[in-house]
């Protein structure tokens, strides 16, 4: 009851702690939190809790921070104050600098030239778990799922997307493995250099 809150000599301190706990609960739970849940978290009854949150709502409004508490049926929710939507939009609209990381490039090359390919095969080829980069490539729409492998566990197969083809000016993935002449030349040169090195040793 309200008496409970006032009983303590250090009411202010006690209150402050309770409010902080409620704030933490509202923050962490995200969506609307039922008043019983908040009550359970702070170890008070629902009436006291509701009164406490109402007090907090006033305080939030007077301090005019970035957030406010809204009441929905028998729940409370912490959310962004509408007047700061502009600031949020500026973050969202901020031109992102898109570029592929070295790891993503490697994974993309493996998918492109080995498709359809499973996560396990990519990991085996690169020698390290590549899930993170693979997931990003799927998100970017450069790589997509391409069925399941007919093997135990039926692992997902990955391949490149049409978007990928469009961006690389390739008509179909069959055009991929054909190494372009200048690359072939370069690879030949490198191989020769390697042999030369070995002979010198």
């Amino acid at each position, binding site marked *: 009851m309200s008496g409970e809150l006032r009983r303590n000599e250090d009411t202010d301190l006690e209150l402050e702690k309770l409010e902080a706990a409620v704030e*933490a609960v509202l*923050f*962490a739970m*995200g969506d609307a939190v039922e008043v019983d849940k908040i009550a359970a978290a702070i170890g008070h009854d629902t009436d006291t809790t509701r009164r406490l949150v109402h007090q907090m709502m006033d305080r939030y409004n007077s301090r005019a921070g970035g957030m406010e508490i809204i009441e929905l049926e028998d729940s409370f929710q912490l*959310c*962004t104050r509408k007047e700061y*939507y502009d600031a*949020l*939009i500026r973050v*969202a*609209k*901020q*031109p*992102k*600098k*898109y*570029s*592929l990381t070295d790891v993503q*490039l*490697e994974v*993309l*090359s*493996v998918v*492109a*030239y080995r498709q359809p390919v499973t996560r396990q095969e990519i990991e085996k*080829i*690169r*020698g390290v778990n590549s899930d993170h980069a693979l997931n990003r490539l799927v998100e*970017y*729409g*450069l790589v997509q799922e391409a069925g399941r492998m007919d093997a135990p566990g039926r692992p997902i197969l990955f391949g490149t997307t049409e*978007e990928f083809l469009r*961006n*690389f*000016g*390739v008509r179909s993935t069959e055009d*991929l493995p054909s*190494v*372009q002449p*200048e*690359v072939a030349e*370069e*690879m030949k040169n490198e191989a020769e250099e390697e042999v030369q090195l070995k002979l010198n040793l």
Partner: protein
Amino acid sequence: MALSVKLDNFEGPLDLLLHLIDINKFNIFDIPIVEITDQYMEYIKNMENRDLNTMSEFLVMAATLLEIKARMLLPVEVDEEGEEVDPREELVRKLLEYKMYKYMAAELKDRMVVAERAFYRGPAIPDEVAAYEQPLDIEELVGDLTLSRLNQIFQNVIRRQNEKIDPIRSRFGRIEQEEISLDEKIIEIREYVAGHESFCFSGLLERQKGRIQVIVTFLAVLELMKTGEIQAVQDHPFGDIRIRRVS
């Protein structure tokens, strides 16, 4: 001394050495190499059931210890600047470094326990704002990446995969198939001793193929000396060691 700790508790040879230094209250900067080598060998003896990939790492350290032990018996080495070289120096450096990372691991663990008490939340971007999400610019993402460059990257990945077969570890793999165990080596030497009352130790080592074989032979000789089946005699300092059958 009683060995109450199982080897499985050790994460590697350095971990085992630190444990030995710790329980004996040895000074890490002045490790009694003979004692520690003996104790280390004692531990290794109990390792026979473990897979060779794990054991090989312990055996390499055994070889290092034996080498240091041998170098300690030789006249003091001097470096280019005339400073005395302690054969244990490199080992001590490695042990100290490893010990530091172990401490840091414990420190990090404490930090983790504290940090885990914080809760985070996912994004809660209002719909009105989310609607402004900039579409992904795939052209910018791909940038000046060309297909030939992508192919080059792929060739590099494949080349590295082929190079990844580490020469040392792949040798361990073959040894695993050869299945030399300490027990077998002991039997082999025992049989040899039965036919030869006395023979040259260095000759025995020379007949071994590969480092692991040498190490296991060394361990087998130590074991047979301990059980009193053979005796090692050195007539003069740095002379050849002769192995004799004890009748």
